[in-house]
């Protein structure tokens, strides 16, 4: 059953992409119009629409690019490094 579901989705990559591109704006519209932000902790959360979406985008970029840069700076090394 699980395999069939995955195969079904894999066969329709376009539909999956469309679903995702629809989901995000819907979510953002809901978060701006339908969510009470008066209990948010910071000013930014309260007044910037879609704050957490922006925050996440930034966080992804920071983490992934930092990890790549950090890894390439010499931290990531050959697997037999300790075998000498």
């Amino acid at each position, binding site marked *: 059953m699980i395999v069939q579901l995955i195969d079904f989705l894999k066969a329709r990559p376009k539909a999956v992409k469309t679903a995702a591109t629809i989901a995000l704006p819907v979510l953002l519209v809901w978060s701006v119009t339908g969510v009470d932000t008066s209990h948010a902790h910071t000013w930014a959360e309260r007044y910037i629409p879609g704050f957490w979406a922006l925050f996440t985008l930034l966080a992804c970029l920071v983490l992934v690019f930092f990890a790549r840069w950090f890894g390439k700076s010499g931290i990531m090394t050959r*697997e037999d490094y300790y075998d000498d």
Partner: protein
Amino acid sequence: MTTSFLHPALLLIVGAVLLPLVREPFRKLYLCSVPIATFVAVLALNWQPGVYGEVVFMDRWTLTFARVDNLSSIFGFIMGLMAIIGTIYGLHVKDNWQHLASWFYVAGSLGVIYAGDYLVLFLFWEMMAFASTFLVWFNKEEGALAAGYRYLLVHTFGGVLLLLGFVLRYQATGDISFALLNEQDTHLFTWLIMAGLMLNAAVPPLHSWLPDAYSKATVTGAVFMCAFTTKTAVYTLARAFAGFDILIVLGVIMAIYGIVYALMENDIRRLLGWEIVSQVGYMVAGVGIGTALAINGTCAHAFAHILYKGLLFMAAGAVIHSTGVCRFTELGGLYKKMPNTMAFMIIGGISVSAFPLFSGFVSKAMIVAASFEAHLLWAGFLLSMVSVGTFLVAGLRLPYLVFFGESRCSEETMSRASDPPWNMHLAMLVAAFFCFLVGTYMPFLYDMLPYRDTTFHPYTSYHLSETLQILVVTAIAFVFLKDRLAARPTISLDLDWFYRYGGRLFLWLAERPLQWLDTAWGAAYRVVGLYGLMVTARFWAWFDWHGIDGLVDGSALCVRAIGRRLALVLQRGHIQQTIYYAVTFAAIILIAYVCL
């Protein structure tokens, strides 16, 4: 205070000792019933909070084997539950020694959790360290032996720090009770105890042992290890160091550090190990914040973490069990072969990523909310950033590299891959069920938390919208960034470099300069020492022969000659002369005696 109680750890220890005597067909039944009985004993103990098992040791110290309160109950509960899940997962393992080590390990953990003083705590602390080392050593894989030794050495070092700390504290205060330390009045012992406990919680820079050992343990051993050591340490930190500000900083560093390394990792269990470092970072930060909500969050997150991390390690173990491969560069595209394992791994992944309806959603948010409420905005935002990273790593990268994407498997791996035996399925099912239960029926977890009057509502529209934004954007970002997170045949250097090379330096010192010194000393001894010794010995032999012996022989000859001379004078054979000499001599003696 009552003394009649049954310590759950005792049940496990006795159960472990008797295990080799139990034969099939009762063995599996026995394997299941001992942890279940232990769990029942935990429930019975938690039912009536109080202090049990106080023993006066050497007329001086009062040992407390069971202090049952709100904080120890929740940790005892989850440890007992995980012991059942872990044992079911390992039910197919024929080697009794592995079960024995696991049970002793869990017994150590339960012992620490209920311990009321440092002596009992230390006893069980070391039991944990030694028993878990065997879970690494029992793995026949190359490198496991060395990893086990590194693990043991590091933990022995941590144990010594803890020992030094509480002995110094006893000397200063005369107190061995294991209780909250004062942040305003810190001493050397405060920091030593903290360092000893932090080593087990894998707080940087004392963390490298964790991914190192957990990736080399046996498949079932890793499932036990991922649950007990770090979370027991979190409990001890929450008990002794709640509200210590330094832990907030260390916890946040730890959360970021772990996730960055997890993003680079190529080994499936090392990735999960780094994820533990990251998630325990939340808990350590929660302990540091120290408010009621933060401590509740720490306990809730530890509880949820044991379940979903256990589930992830079980799913990873199932992959390694069936394929024998642990590197992402040799895995991929396995979803058709192991659909159930994939489903469980995804449930674990979305639980840790705080999907609504799953355990992480109701636990992690408490710590983040507590940091915002304590006006630690930097901590709140950085921990939220780590939430993003967590979903990237455990929710997306891990299942993607194992089950989806292109297959990097060899034909042999592909043909061997299959869903694991029924017992592994059952254990994963139980863990997945609890992940879901915790996320949907809040009273189950929240009623166990230490501060019962502090309320938290995770399912608010704001929290839902925040979490969904994080999850959806991360998922979309992953599609674009996945090539940068692809599997690479590398290892990542970490602080264990220092002790690995430190060990090599020591070996080099021993092999080269010290060995040279030893050889040179041996040669010098042979040339100078031995020759000198022989010359001296010859001289003394000569002296003995000619000097000592000559003197002794000469005096003997002299005495004999004098005797002969005297005999010629005194003993001529005339009896009257002899009597005359004798009487004269006696008279002289007598007169001398009387006069003097």
